[in-house]
């Protein structure tokens, strides 16, 4: 049988097309496991957060594997204890990189994220996320491999200030604001943004108190507040103490200011402690609360926790944060696999930056946009003594 030139070209073209579609990176072809590592502060003073985040990552990955993994690839999880110590965290990460070859690593905070940056970048195959919300980690020259699973400290503060500004505009009363911030990164970074946004919105800051994160001499600080008579006191950089004692002494001193905070300062541990003294906390939360019934993913999370750990009383912010980080890791891997690309840092970075209008199952309220390596949205909640929960006080705000 003879073929004319057109037929030969057609056959060659079809063969080339078939060949190209059959070609897949080695990673995709082998259905290799996707390895997710984590350095959680499971012991030490941050253990309450680390234990929750370890459970969350493990739970999400188990749940995801039961649902088929990432396009048929199983996910393998390796969680270790960093004790929130840089030396131990670095040892954990280095050991993990050498022995487990992870594609993603969850890190316990800013100091560790910065300390391992060079090693992670040197691999060229690892992307990291974690607990920090510091904007320093958004520097694309130093940390192109890192993302935040929520807004920066500054962004949450801007959301809070926007909310105060809107209320002030609606009521016609400009409230006097006092800031009480811790001298750590979370506090100082927030302090700067709170003041900048307040100035922009014309909201007066009448007192600016910076304290240590613990062991604060509350009495002398309350005396300062008494002189400035604020309408709102924003606590930033504290997970719980010394805020309840601070507020108790404020009331004794006749200060009736509204108490506000953001992110880690509006978790259950804080609002419950304040509620015991009859206080109603208001603050910005980057995600829905664990009891929210409007989110499909939150319902899944609750059901899974009830099944595997029925003794767990509630779902903390740290748990949600780590679960969402696990979701982002898997989404990045999925996008790389769909595009027939290996899990290298440039591919994963491109995949991360392509995440726009992504449905997190309602965890973040608005569709998530990770093109800038963070999710810049949140919502103001206020404590409701009737339901004993934080209830929405605003819609979702993107800044």
């Amino acid at each position, binding site marked *: 049988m003879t073929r004319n030139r057109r037929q030969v070209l057609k056959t060659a073209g079809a063969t080339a097309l078939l060949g190209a579609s059959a070609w897949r990176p080695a990673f995709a072809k082998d259905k290799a496991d996707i390895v997710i590592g984590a350095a959680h502060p*499971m012991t030490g003073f941050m253990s309450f957060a680390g234990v929750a985040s370890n459970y969350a990552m493990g739970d999400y990955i188990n749940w995801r594997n039961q649902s088929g993994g990432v396009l048929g690839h199983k996910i393998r999880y390796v969680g270790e204890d960093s004790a929130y110590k840089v030396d131990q965290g670095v040892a954990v990460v280095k050991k993990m990189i050498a022995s487990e070859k992870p594609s993603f690593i969850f890190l316990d905070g800013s*100091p560790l994220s910065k300390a391992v940056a*060079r090693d992670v970048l040197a691999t060229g195959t690892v992307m990291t996320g974690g607990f920090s919300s510091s904007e320093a980690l958004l520097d694309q020259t130093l940390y192109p491999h890192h993302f935040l699973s929520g807004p920066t400290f500054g962004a949450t503060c801007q959301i809070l200030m926007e909310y105060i500004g809107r209320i002030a505009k609606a009521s016609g009363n400009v409230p006097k604001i006092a800031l009480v911030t811790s001298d750590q990164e979370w*506090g100082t970074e927030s302090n700067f943004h709170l003041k900048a946004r307040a100035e922009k919105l014309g909201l007066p800051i009448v007192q600016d108190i910076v304290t240590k994160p613990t062991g604060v001499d509350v009495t002398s600080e309350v005396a300062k507040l008494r002189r400035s008579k604020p309408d709102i006191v924003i606590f930033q950089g504290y997970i719980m103490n010394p805020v309840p004692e601070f507020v108790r002494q404020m009331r004794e001193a006749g200060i009736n200011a509204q108490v506000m905070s953001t992110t880690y300062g509006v978790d259950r541990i804080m609002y419950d402690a304040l509620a015991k003294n009859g206080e109603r906390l208001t603050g910005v939360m980057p995600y829905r609360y664990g009891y929210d019934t409007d989110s499909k993913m939150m319902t899944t999370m609750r059901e899974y926790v009830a099944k595997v750990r029925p003794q767990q009383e509630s779902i903390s912010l740290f748990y949600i944060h780590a679960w969402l980080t696990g979701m982002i890791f898997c989404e990045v891997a999925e996008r790389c696999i769909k595009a027939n690309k290996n899990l290298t840092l440039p591919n994963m970075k491109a995949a991360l930056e392509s995440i726009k209008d992504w449905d997190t199952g309602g965890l973040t309220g608005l569709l998530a946009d990770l093109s800038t390596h963070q999710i810049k949205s949140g919502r103001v909640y206020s404590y409701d003594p009737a339901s004993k929960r934080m209830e929405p006080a605003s819609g979702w705000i993107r800044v």
Partner: protein
Amino acid sequence: MRTGVFFENYGAEEQLWDSQTAKTMMAVFVVALYLLPLWGSDYMVAMACIVGIHLIAVMGLNITTGSAGLISLSQAAFMGVGCYAVSWFARWGIPFWLALPMAGLLAALIGMVVGLPSLRVKGMYFAIATLAAHFVLSFLFREWTPVTGGPGGVNIPAANFFGIELVGDHRMFYPIYICVLLLGLAAANITRSYVGRAFIAVRDRDISAEILGVNLLRYKVLAFMLGSFYAGVAGGLLGYFYGAITAEYFTFGLSVFYVAAIIVGGLGRVLGSVLGAVFMTFVPESLRLMSSALSGSIPSLANLLLPMGQVVFGILIIIFLIFEPRGLAQMWARVRRAFHLWPFRT
């Protein structure tokens, strides 16, 4: 076969090595150590680097506290001084081999100021003075943002050795362990010099030392400056090793860690510093690895086993203090003596 070590004069007793065998064994150990990057895993080399940095700081503290008897609770803060100093020296283009001693000298200068009260106060009172210095320096690390980067910390450009970027554990291993060797030899030689004997005289009875002609102010301040110098170099190496550091690293807890290391290892002896630093770094890490391994097979035990590692570590330290207050170095000496005198008993 050798039985025991006999000294025939004072000079022999002051030699660094008490026998040719000890010298040879040490040489073999040093060579094996320096070959570690060639055969060790990334994790082993990384851990060795971390131990090496802590070892330098511990050796410095052992001069200040172990030899001269000045309890210092500000060693971590002096490390911070060294770390922030190299971040600036590196930005100014000063090569790391010059930046490290400069960082040590800066820390020593600050140490001189902190050490001055040692003439008027001693013991726990002096320890409190150093504690105050720690908090003053920590405050500066957090608040002097233009210099220290504030709570966000600083980034340190990679060390560069004639065009070779010293990035990664394998490349940083050699600068760290060259410093360990040089500073270790220096510490050992200080101990057997007039200066070292003056430190010990000051530690044991300062009034007697002064009657014997030892200038108390000079030697107390010198001991503090030497300790600070070591801490400054260790801090500089730490900065180059991690590439980024925040003020959170230089905590009071780290200073206490170093004090514990010299007590567990053995006061006033270089070997004590080595054993103390190794013990304090590797034992918690080994316990953590064991806990992780066990919790892998029994996941429900993870939350129980991990904190238990810290409890076991604490108990181990207490046991050492009760049964061997002179530290691991003394245990090592007993083991050596048992071998030397075998089959006789000590």
